């Protein structure tokens, strides 16, 4: 294992210390490992928090700041945080208008956030939760833990954060988050595995001519392993199930998000975007907004995911609204 770390046990703590050293104007870190917006709580503003395992950076800590998250709870690498973190986050950002939990649909995340929400309610804080479950690679939700929350989470955090910043109340913010969830679909693939620092070796092994289609963001293997294909073929394999699922229709305008899993050069993401734009054109779907980069990652995994969000004026307006976080910043 080759990593720029000192020890697996201290990696997340040192990462957070580094984030504060770099972005102390935007964030602070409180016990037990919660990244909080520097000016939280803001009276009368709905708090928006999220969290999940570490290793997906810049998600979530990189999205804490004006116009996006009020706090993020980073767990151990690929491990859902614990309820104490979500409770501390909820308490820290509660400005009296309630707190929204944006939860990715994983067994661990769901259970830990549920426990935290119960505790927060017991303390008199109004809490609502929206579960993001946008990964179309997971089928038959009857026989699975249900669709995973992947790329759509980043979009939800941005859009919902903007609404909360604009003063929307908890019910409105919650409904907006659900609207994002209802209109977003994703799918991902891997060219290589990643290595969890504490595990010390790659989570799975892939042959030099193999790839995994339908992976999540935790280095878990996908549904199918197949021979390596071209970027165009891979883009088709990811885009088609997404387009058919909602389904996206002729005339729709979408936010097209091509995401790198951490170890994929931007060059390759733009090659995928190029093909994706052709596929969308062929379907009569227009690209209203674009988003390309390593925004929700699996450590150093090579691979990509595609996320499409069906836009309307409201979603577009909140996507465009100013944001100022360590990772995402515009308009201010």
């Amino acid at each position, binding site marked *: 294992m080759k990593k720029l770390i000192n020890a697996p046990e201290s990696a997340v703590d040192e990462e957070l210390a580094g984030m504060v050293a770099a972005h102390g104007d935007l964030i602070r870190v409180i016990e*037990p490992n919660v990244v909080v917006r520097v000016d939280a709580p803001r009276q009368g503003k709905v708090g928006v928090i999220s969290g999940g*395992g570490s290793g997906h950076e810049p998600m979530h800590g990189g999205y804490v700041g004006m116009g996006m998250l009020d706090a993020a709870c980073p*767990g*151990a*690498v*690929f*491990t*859902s*945080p*614990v*309820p*104490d973190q979500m409770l501390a986050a909820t308490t820290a950002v509660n400005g009296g208008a309630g707190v929204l939990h944006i939860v990715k649909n*994983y*067994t*661990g995340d769901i*259970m*830990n956030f*549920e*426990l935290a929400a119960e505790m927060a309610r017991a303390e008199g804080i109004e809490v609502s939760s929206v579960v993001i479950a946008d990964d179309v*690679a*997971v*089928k*038959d939700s009857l*026989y*699975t*833990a249900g669709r*995973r929350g992947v790329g759509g989470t980043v979009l939800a955090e941005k859009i919902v954060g903007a609404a909360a910043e604009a003063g929307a109340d908890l019910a409105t913010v919650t409904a907006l988050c659900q609207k994002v969830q209802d209109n977003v679909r994703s799918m991902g693939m891997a060219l290589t595995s990643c290595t*969890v620092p*504490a*595990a010390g*070796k790659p*989570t*799975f092994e892939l042959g030099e001519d193999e790839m995994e289609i*339908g992976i*999540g963001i*935790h*280095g*878990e*293997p996908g*549904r199918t392993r197949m021979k390596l294909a071209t970027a165009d073929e891979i883009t088709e394999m990811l885009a088609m199930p997404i387009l058919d699922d909602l389904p996206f229709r002729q005339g729709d305008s979408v936010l097209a998000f091509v995401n790198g899993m951490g170890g994929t050069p931007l060059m390759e993401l733009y090659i995928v975007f190029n093909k994706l734009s052709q596929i969308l054109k062929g379907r009569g779907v227009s690209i209203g907004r674009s988003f390309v980069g390593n925004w929700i990652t699996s450590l150093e995994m090579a691979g990509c995911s595609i996320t499409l969000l069906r836009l309307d004026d409201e979603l577009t307006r909140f996507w465009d609204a100013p944001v100022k976080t360590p990772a995402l910043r515009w308009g201010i």
Partner: protein
Amino acid sequence: MSGATSISYDDVVAWINTFAATIRAQKDYLTALDSAIGDADHGINMDRGMQAAIAKLPGLPARDVGAAFKSVGMTLVSTVGGASGPLYGTFFLQFGTATAGRESIGVDDVNRALDAAIAGIQRLGKAEAGDKTMLDALLPARDALHAAAESGASLEEALARMAEAAEQGMLATTPLVARKGRASYLGERSAGHQDPGATSSYLLLKAAADTWSGSASGEAPG
């Protein structure tokens, strides 16, 4: 502990310590199992939690079995995260509730506590037998313990049958297709691999059987 019918506070602490030591020894193995059908962290998660849990035991005020279990449960909830944190946390919290205020417990207490612990896990995780989870070790173990208790087996014998059933249940997860947890994303590809959580659950019950056999009441082994 041939003939012993009661499990003391020290026995309980010994169980927890043995389980923590087992997890430490099997950390890489559990993580490797989780690599195959999950995200390669189960051993790491459980080890982090159990080390934190045993660190707190010496500081507990009273020799209250229930309080010890509750401390373990709360510590697991607060330090493990992932799916196993709330689930094992619940296991011990329910064990604690079922044994609150007791200085020692018997096989019937273990029976009731295990019932409550499993019910808690199912309430939270909504999994059933055959979903390829820790329940596939816990459920047959509970049934075996019930049956042993009803048939009048000794505590030692009952615990041995419980551990044996847990082991069988764990092994039987291998061919299953997962329907809950992270492994379910793999669909058919999850078959052919032993479930990590069922494995740690077997280790948990095996640690109980091992620790409580041969230990006379009030005597912690090793």
